């Protein structure tokens, strides 16, 4: 069972590596941002599989942290990509 879980974890990571090609080919910025999103989710899946296979409860906590980081990475991209001239409605006078 453990080998099976590790094998599926490796397969998920290989799939994510396949998805990262989109970063090279993606015409629009939004396409390039999807691959890290997939990398985040794939990394979480691999971490959960690793935690279950090796019986380490810590890996699940690491996966939770990675979830937050993946979300923040995408939000940072969106904030960066939107034109700074037009202020966000909720930002008020913020530059």
């Amino acid at each position, binding site marked *: 069972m453990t080998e099976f879980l590790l094998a599926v974890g490796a397969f*998920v990571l290989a799939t994510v590596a396949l*998805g990262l090609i989109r970063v090279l080919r993606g015409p629009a910025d939004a396409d390039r941002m999807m691959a890290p999103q997939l990398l985040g989710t794939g990394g979480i899946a691999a971490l959960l599989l690793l935690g*279950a296979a090796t019986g380490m409860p810590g890996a*699940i906590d690491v996966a939770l942290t990675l979830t937050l980081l993946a979300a923040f990475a995408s*939000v940072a991209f969106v904030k960066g990509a939107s034109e700074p001239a037009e202020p966000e409605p909720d930002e008020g006078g913020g530059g």
Partner: protein
Amino acid sequence: MSLLLDIFTVVAVSLGAVFFLAGAVGLLRFPDTLTRLHALTKADNVGLGLIVLGLLPQTERPLAAVKLIVAWLLVQLASGTVSQLIARTARRTEPPA
């Protein structure tokens, strides 16, 4: 009984991996930005959901099982919100082709 659980785990986790593959292939081969976004979020959320479902019987302590479910819910929340933001950016930067 544990054999039944193992079989359930093997089936659910491999289905989740298949959905991951579908997400990555969809990300590469779909023509338009928004269709890629659809393929990406649908596939990896369902993939992760099935993997978490498959891992639930493997956890020794109930706390780990709760953490697995919380991780999946957090990914659902984050991925849903982020997809809307990415779609808005994609729509705003290039006019509808």
